């Protein structure tokens, strides 16, 4: 009996084809990716469980035959040789990088990656909606989330210096283009550059898709940080994946003599692309920049003003990337301090010449471990973020809170490294008085008077966990989660969905309103919150945005079992000025207004049945609830209004010309962001 192999080995570029043309990087640029083995499910394309590569080039109306990775010849030689002229290698490359990215996410998240669902309008049979509509001529419809099994990947989708994730197609579109670079010694003019051959670009786009599956409201451009966060996260994942390539890592450790804060390949993104569109180096660099005046690479020194002054998504995203990368460098330096002392007899000063290969190996191991830890901290934090309107401060708090949950004793000061790197860039979470791990971690919420309700709710959700824990089929996980959110009313085992339970249990509960910042009382219409008639009577509309179980094991073997639910509620409002020019929030009539969203991520401990955290972007004015007044959150509404009004100031010329200003979240937002 022969066992299934754990991996499929596929050759590919560690960076992109341009590094194979340079003597000093050619050797390390070709690496072998180890991809989780997919056997019978993997069809030529490759089309597997998570992704399906379809190589159709609409610009010349041609289909290219898909690579059959199960072909014995390819199995025997770890796939095709890296080559720009063989489209089947291109397919292999996108598959290898996308799968590597997905698996890195899964190991951080502790659960399978699901793509964001396809939201469609379903027309219901007439009998179904007899109560819901007073107007007889309207057809009765409802929105349904359809499961998307595989992310579609088009390696040759367009002829442009662009690649993007399409939330509406659940697809990655990669472009290719003929380059006219700034420096022709770096690249031949007219040479075709394929974005699908860049590890960084493929990892970046795949991360956009994964992030959209986890937090689908993060494509709403509601504050300067949201799209920047999407961009930054995609870059962070691409960067830290560099550290998972052992040969590359050792080579760069040796080249920098262990100092990863100096110029090196690991901190650079999309080198070929950057050169091809006319820059003098990589598209982005987490630690430094090419200075066009001195014509030298210079490390970037944060001045503390970046976060306040930079508003365009990529540049703003770069602030977050450099903060996280600096946290990594600090952690790495602290992890190798002892090694350097041992290697230098205590002086800390390394001798001239090449480093001892043993030392390089040990340093590389520490770098790789630190990178993995930092990436996992970032990925885990995604479960601790509010479902709407995220900013970098929220992300910092999420990182600190999730890490505190899992690792009680921060013996290596990881959390401090994060806090310090964010502080240096002027990223301060709102409402925090002291910048310390204790104050940044979200406090346990006050659940007075609600605990009984929560106990019943979480107890019921144990069924969900029991059901979901025994399947690793992604389609089933999706279906079970949907069933527990929406309920199941026509089977033998009737399940009242989570949405209905929230609706009924917390009806008029001001305690729950204070926790979530969402409206569950009468009079919601006056605030512009739409009405739901899902369960017969009228109630304020809200949605259970996502539901999942997180089971994680900490470094000391401690286990964390959590149920994570996020709720979202919208209001349609307009802003008018009163006689003294003070802005007033009004509910909007017809199509005149704009949408403001509130949301809350609730994290329950499945073992104690208690609510651990309520991470909220309140739609309501939470303070006013103390005096039993229900009004919208004035500051959030006004901030959104101002941001939309000033959209021109933070958009590129291309976005301003062709986009829908801040209403662009359903109009291929990443195509707009990535256009060069």
């Amino acid at each position: 009996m022969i066992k299934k192999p754990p991996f499929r080995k596929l050759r590919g570029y560690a960076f992109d084809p341009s590094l194979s043309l340079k003597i000093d990087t050619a050797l390390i640029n070709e690496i072998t990716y180890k991809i989780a083995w997919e056997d019978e499910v993997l069809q030529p394309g490759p089309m597997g469980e998570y992704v399906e590569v379809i190589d159709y080039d609409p610009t010349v109306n041609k289909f290219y035959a898909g690579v059959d990775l199960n072909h014995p010849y390819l199995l025997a030689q770890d796939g095709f040789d890296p080559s720009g002229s063989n489209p089947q290698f291109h397919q292999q490359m996108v598959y290898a990088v996308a799968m590597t990215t997905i698996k890195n996410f899964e190991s951080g998240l502790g659960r399978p990656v699901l793509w964001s669902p396809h939201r469609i309008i379903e027309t219901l049979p007439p009998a179904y909606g007899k109560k819901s509509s007073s107007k007889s001529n309207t057809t009765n419809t409802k929105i349904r989330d359809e499961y998307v099994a595989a992310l579609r990947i088009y390696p040759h989708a367009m002829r442009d210096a662009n690649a993007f994730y399409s939330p509406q197609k659940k697809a990655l579109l990669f472009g290719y283009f003929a380059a006219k670079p700034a420096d022709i010694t770096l690249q031949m003019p007219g040479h075709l550059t394929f974005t699908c051959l860049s590890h960084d670009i493929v990892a970046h786009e795949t991360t956009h898709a994964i992030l959209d599956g986890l937090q689908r409201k993060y494509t709403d451009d509601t504050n300067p940080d949201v799209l920047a966060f999407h961009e930054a996260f995609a870059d962070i994942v691409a960067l830290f994946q560099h550290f998972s390539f052992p040969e590359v890592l050792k080579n760069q450790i040796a080249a920098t003599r262990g100092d990863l804060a100096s110029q090196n390949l690991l901190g650079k993104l999309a080198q070929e692309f950057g050169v091809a569109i006319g820059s003098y180096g990589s598209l982005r660099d987490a630690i430094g920049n090419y200075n066009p005046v001195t014509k030298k690479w210079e490390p970037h020194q944060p001045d503390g003003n970046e976060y306040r002054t930079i508003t365009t998504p990529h540049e703003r995203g770069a602030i977050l990337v450099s903060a996280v990368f600096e946290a990594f460098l600090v952690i790495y330096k602290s992890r190798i301090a002892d090694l350097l002392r041992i290697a230098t007899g205590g002086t800390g000063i390394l001798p001239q010449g090449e480093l001892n290969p043993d030392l390089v190996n040990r340093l590389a191991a520490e770098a790789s471990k630190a990178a993995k830890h930092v990436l996992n901290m970032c990925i885990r934090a995604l479960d601790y973020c509010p479902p709407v309107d995220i900013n970098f401060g929220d992300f910092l708090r999420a990182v600190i809170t999730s890490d505190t949950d899992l690792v009680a004793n921060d013996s290596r000061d990881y959390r401090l490294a994060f806090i310090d790197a964010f502080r240096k860039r002027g990223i301060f979470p709102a409402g925090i008085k002291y910048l310390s791990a204790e104050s940044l971690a979200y406090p346990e919420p006050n659940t007075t008077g609600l605990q009984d309700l929560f106990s019943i709710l979480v107890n019921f959700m144990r069924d969900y966990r029991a059901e979901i824990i025994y399947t690793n089929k992604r389609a089933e996980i999706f279906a079970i989660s949907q069933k527990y959110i929406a309920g199941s009313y026509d089977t033998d085992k009737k399940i009242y969905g989570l949405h209905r339970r929230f609706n009924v249990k917390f009806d008029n509960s001001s305690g729950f309103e204070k926790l979530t910042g969402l409206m569950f009382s009468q009079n919601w219409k006056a605030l512009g919150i739409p009405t739901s008639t899902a369960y017969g009577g009228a109630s304020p509309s809200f949605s259970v945005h996502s539901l999942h179980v997180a089971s994680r094991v900490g470094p000391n073997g401690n286990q964390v079992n959590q149920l994570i639910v996020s709720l979202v509620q919208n209001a349609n409002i307009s802003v008018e000025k009163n006689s003294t020019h003070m802005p007033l929030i009004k509910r909007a009539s017809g199509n005149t207004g704009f949408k403001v969203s509130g949301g809350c991520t609730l994290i329950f401990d499945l073992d104690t049945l208690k609510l651990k955290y309520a991470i909220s972007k309140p739609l309501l004015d939470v303070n006013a609830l103390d005096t039993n007044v229900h009004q919208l959150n004035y500051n959030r509404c006004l901030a959104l209004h101002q941001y939309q009004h000033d959209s021109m100031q933070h958009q590129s010329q291309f976005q301003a010309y062709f986009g829908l200003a801040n209403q662009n979240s359903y109009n291929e937002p990443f195509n707009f962001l990535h256009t060069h």
Partner: protein
Amino acid sequence: MAKSSNLFMRISKIVVRMYRAGTGDFFVLHFKKGNTKSFTMMIDCGCINGSKEGFKPLVENLATYTRGVIDLLVVTHEHADHINGFQKSADIFSKINFKKVWLAWTEDDQDPIANDYRANHSEMALALNSAVNKLNGLADTNYYESLFAAEANGIAMLAGRKQFIRSLTDLNALNINTAAAPGTPKPTMVQLLRDYKVIKPTTKIEFLEPGDVKSNLPGAKGISFFVLGPPRSRVYLNRTEKEGENFDKREEKSTVDVALIEALNAGDTVGGDMHLPFDAVFEANAANNVYSDRYEHGGDWRKIDYDWLYNAGSLALRYERSINNTSVALAIRFDASEKVLLFPGDAEFGNWESWHDALEWPVKINGEIVAKKAEYLLNNTVFYKVGHHLSQNGTAKSKGVAMMTSETLAAMVTLDFKKIQTGWLNTMPNDLLGAELIRKTGGKLFFVGDRNQILPNIKTNRVSIRKDDEDNLNKLNEPFDGKFFIDYTVNG
């Protein structure tokens, strides 16, 4: 004073008349000796969505105002918003005597570099047209309506696609000068203006080179014309922006459209393998193509048949800026007072930059000839025709507005929200530049369109405007409210 001695008098003032057709340039300048007109110059004639009826009263006014004789016509560049008035009002212009026409060297069909540029531009224009036609074909057949019918956010998706197609179509409408077919260059401005009956057999044509100085033209004694742009160097011609040098932060870009243009211009005949990225052996077997089956039957909502056409958006912007950069940029100087009127057309950053880097002009000051750089002309600028309708890319910052230090500076903006293309509504006016000009001119800023529509878009929360300046602006503009031109007199 006897009429004969008038010949020896210098020009003492220039009356700039800006016609208010819509977003677009349309100027007539009367050069006067005292109160007697002795030289008439016209610069451009066009506006966005210009119609024959719209232009008619304005061009008729021009015919009367100039008494049917124009000593000098300057056409800055070929965009519709600078030339379509000639086309629409050809019947009137055919009766006007244009004595001389000045055009950029890029319009000279004897110039190999110019011809090369025009050939490249022709390819870009055809590719753009092809994309615009294809996308409008989709829009006209309600392709997106049915594609998004079942999508939960279909209305927003549809609005997005429509906005894109509308903006692209509008942007492409600037390009009324296109080639007949791939491989043939588009007409030069000389051919166009002949077609429009502006250039007549008696009209003298001159091409302008950067660095040229033209002084003491008949009837314009005491006046020198300095030619600043368009630059000869490709480096400058191709440069449309530079970080920190425009009124907005933008990165420097390069030409990346070659492959896209090739595919768009291939049309329906995908012949030859010039534009194919891969060898034919890699193509899927047509008879048994499992990939196309999967593609065709895996949901229309996931297909990508037409998404690549949207790349024409960045192509269109690059093409527009490239043409803008071929603008004639002229400085008109009163030799005695050294005061300058600056007309840069729609020059983009590379054009502006080239004035400073490459050029010097011989200037007579107190009887002595000295070499002066562009900074001297900018320092002495008292009238500025704001480049590219007050957008962020039409006026250089440190090499432009910052050097305009005259205390008597006035400026005119050819922007009008009533007649404007869709995309420009979101990019014009640039608030930073607008506020800076209001400050520098002390309110001597005039608009083609209704200032009450434009000013609120300049007064954003990141700029501050002095109340005195705004009051002055309103006071100076008020007399022209409801009129179809604005006159501003520059005293020499």
